[in-house]
């Protein structure tokens, strides 16, 4: 009963969110908010996707940039080879991400802890090196991309990309929320707590981790696909930049991974701060803030923002009674 009503509330919230975003693209003439907003929404998708494997199952994936970059280059390849429309680019990227997630999972998910993390970095660099040596998509020098005409009702391409990314946010959050509340989430949580005990309690650990890796990878790749059109340019060292990995990880952990809202909160908080700082100070300071926040949170607030909010809630409730 209770879960049904929260489900209804969730979907009403999602529809209101999308309606507000759509309305904004129709009302606001200035392009800058969409330019900045797109990046924030992109990080929300990445952080939420990261937390499906990294947060729920406790596997610190450092390969976000591999998936993101593959998304970018799937789009680049399709545009260059066939001129496919944006929706096809994103769908194809999701497919590529799922396949890559499956392959990465098979190769790395038997490793544990730091070995898994290092292996995912290794895969990122290997994929980046391969793309760097792939002439068709521009090699190390990168490639320019022409935007096609924008589809109504949007006035500019960036506004459209912004709304598309908002759709991906809703998709990612809905999936993460479903997983968190279902048997999959309980199984992943058991894996995170104690993998051997989980296995001996009947949890098919490898299969569940693979599933998490596939879903997480598909979402990350999909989030990367529109970036080709957004920047109108792609090169391997930006598309596969490890900053995406750190950002996704930091935003999730800072927000808290026990609940799907954690990564959303973390990504919005850090994303907004970064957009603000990028304008006012410099992009290096961005990364510095990210690093310092990450260290502060993992040391002092291990449950993240969600944990802090819950603690305050409990404390208030404790005082009230």
């Amino acid at each position, binding site marked *: 009963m209770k879960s049904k009503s929260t489900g209804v509330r969730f979907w009403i919230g999602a529809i209101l969110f999308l309606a507000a975003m759509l309305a904004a693209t129709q009302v606001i003439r200035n392009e800058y908010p969409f330019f900045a907003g797109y990046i924030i929404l992109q990080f929300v998708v990445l952080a939420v996707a990261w937390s499906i494997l990294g947060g729920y199952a406790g596997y610190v994936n450092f390969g976000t940039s591999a998936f993101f970059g593959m998304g970018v280059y799937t789009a680049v390849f399709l545009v260059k080879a066939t001129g496919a429309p944006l929706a096809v680019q994103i769908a194809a990227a999701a497919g590529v991400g799922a396949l890559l997630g499956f392959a990465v999972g098979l190769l790395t998910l038997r490793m544990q802890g730091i070995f898994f993390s290092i292996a995912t970095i290794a895969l990122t660099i290997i994929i980046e090196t391969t793309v760097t040596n792939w002439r068709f998509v521009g090699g190390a020098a990168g490639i320019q991309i022409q935007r096609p005409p924008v589809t109504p009702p949007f006035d500019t391409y960036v506004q459209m990309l912004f709304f598309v990314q908002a759709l991906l946010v809703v998709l990612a959050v809905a999936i993460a929320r479903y997983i968190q509340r279902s048997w999959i989430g309980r199984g992943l949580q058991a894996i995170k707590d104690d993998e051997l005990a989980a296995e*001996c309690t009947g949890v098919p650990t490898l299969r569940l981790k693979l599933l998490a890796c596939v879903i997480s990878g598909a979402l990350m790749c999909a989030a990367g696909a529109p970036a080709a059109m957004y920047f109108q340019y792609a090169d391997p060292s930006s598309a596969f930049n490890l900053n995406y990995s750190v950002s996704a990880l930091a935003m999730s952990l800072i927000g808290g991974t026990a609940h799907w809202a954690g990564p959303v909160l973390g990504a919005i908080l850090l994303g907004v701060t970064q957009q603000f700082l990028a304008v006012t100070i410099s992009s290096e300071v961005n990364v510095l803030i990210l690093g310092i926040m990450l260290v502060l949170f993992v040391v002092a607030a291990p449950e993240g923002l969600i944990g802090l909010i819950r603690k305050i809630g409990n404390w208030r409730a404790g005082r009230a009674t």
Partner: protein
Amino acid sequence: MAVAESASPLLRINAVTKRFGGFVAVNNVSVDIRPGERFGLIGPNGSGKTTLINCISGAFRTEAGTVMFRGDDISRLPAHMRTRRGIARSFQIPRPFRSMTVAENLLVALDFTSLHGFASAVQRRDIVMSILMRTGLALKADVPTGNLSQVELRKMELARAMATHPKLLISDEAMAGLAGSEVDEVLDLLMKLASEDITIIMIEHIMQAVMRFSERVMCLDAGKIIAIGTPAEVMANKRVQEAYLGT
């Protein structure tokens, strides 16, 4: 049918060997466990008891030998498949899912091993509560496992194992380090489970408990079986006494 089943063993361990590097932890062990049996496994520390049950439950793969369960060779199955077929275990050092409450720990087992995965939330809660009732943990259902005492943790492990609906339950030193009255609590619990048609292998150091519980006892030393038989026979065995008193 019933006759045939009681005649064939529930679990057949056939020439199982497990090595760590050059060290042989379990050395060519063969034994049959009958359905409904209360089986005691003893042996000094490091004699390979935990390793043997790791081989049975699938936490380790064996180097040589086979493990048959209800007539099927399960030697190559991953641990979760063995759990689903009806082999459950507790851990010598309790391994609860620490971020969960006691009831949630049991729900993991329900979610992944039985048809109850499709039952409604209320029904599943009922099943969990009935198991917790039997194991004396009903009052602790919504307590995080981090807040449990040692004896409660041991019972929780047994309860979680029960929630997988096992046919064979392996208890690895569930009484070690407990006070006298607590030992009796856990022993009574195991006796009760045994009377519910569950076959039990109990690893234990506390001799009174082993004597009281077991229909048959096996003693390991340095990975080998040195004695097997009724509790009285095994206790009377010279080599067992030597192994326990030390040489």
